[in-house]
């Protein structure tokens, strides 16, 4: 299946555990991942594609479709897609990695347990193992984080 690349001007959201957040910043550990299937990537949500009049509403839309356990101690990192594409590509060239990083749409169908998630997307074409090169890419992604918000709304 061909996945469409998302616009450079748009933004994605990445779920962050407290183990990957320190010194007031989202750290590279937030982007570690293991592939579940061929063509897989880092799971994110396309903010602009969510329903809602403003970012808070859009995040609430995404929150309502989450498939993992989000807690009050968790964060959501906001990244600009164009910067992710450019910075990761530059880093991977410096590392000599012959991969093509991209941010692509990957909408999820509804299941017995979860509603459909039309905002789901992937950061694809990046190393997925436990290598130093992969860790350098994760740090690059962390440096692309523009801001972060609580994963669950404040009481």
């Amino acid at each position, binding site marked *: 299946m061909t996945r469409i690349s998302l616009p450079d001007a748009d933004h994605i959201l990445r779920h962050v*555990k*407290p*183990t*990957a*957040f*320190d*010194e007031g*910043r989202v*750290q*590279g*550990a937030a982007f*570690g*991942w*293991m592939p579940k299937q061929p063509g897989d990537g880092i799971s994110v949500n396309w903010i602009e594609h969510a329903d809602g009049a403003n970012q808070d509403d859009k995040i609430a839309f995404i929150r309502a479709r989450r498939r993992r356990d989000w*807690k009050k*101690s968790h964060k959501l990192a906001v990244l600009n897609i164009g910067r992710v594409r450019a910075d990761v590509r*530059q*880093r991977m060239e*410096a*590392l000599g990695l012959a991969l093509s990083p991209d941010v692509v749409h990957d909408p999820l169908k509804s299941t017995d347990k979860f509603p459909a998630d039309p905002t789901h997307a992937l950061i694809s074409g990046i190393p997925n193992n*436990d290598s*130093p*090169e992969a*860790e*350098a890419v994760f*740090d690059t992604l962390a*440096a692309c984080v523009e801001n972060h918000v609580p994963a669950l709304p404040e009481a």
Partner: protein
Amino acid sequence: MQDRASVFDDTTSDAIQANALLGQRSHPRLARRIEARPVCLSAPLLPSITSPYHIHSAHGIHRVGIEYFDIWSQWQGLENIGVVRAVAIGDPIEPGQAALVRIVVREPERDIVKQSILSRLKDLHAAAADEDMTIHLDSERDFRLYVLEQMRPNRKPAVTLLENGNLRALWSDASGQQVGLQFRGDGWVQYVLFARTMPDQTLATSVGRKMFNATLESVRQMGLHRLIYT
């Protein structure tokens, strides 16, 4: 046998508290037992240290110029922040006479950093339990040995728990430079180093796996130790 001494400069500062140990190769008059007293060095122990200091002893005040010698020796042992070369420049020591002085830092700032790191480790243990994650004992043992006992940074790193169960320390700055060290156990470190060697140029990147001391040599060669000791 080494005698304990004290070193301070004329500038009052509690930024760094230090005691000096006079080494076996020190000047004979410096090697005599020297009265201990609180110490203040006004500048971090970085290569720029050249200003004169005074060593107080029972025999008087010795003016010495301390030249940077090898700050990295702190990682060869658990107690020494560095080996500096002290050159006598006034009475009662003969001008020009040299002495090797090992400085052991008792620095409130470092203690605060250490406590901050320990606090973060405690938080990570709680978070790991909450997230059903495991912190590998080998990784934590190496982290404590190398970061807390040998490196003894005066700047707290970001400390994270990776999905593979290893701990990672990261020092970074606003320009994108960084020292990232993943502690993999048995002395092995996975490192990710970004260094700005020239202004406005792409960051130099160095990644790999090495034993701890070899990794620190790579950090030093890229000039990134200043991220750890600011």
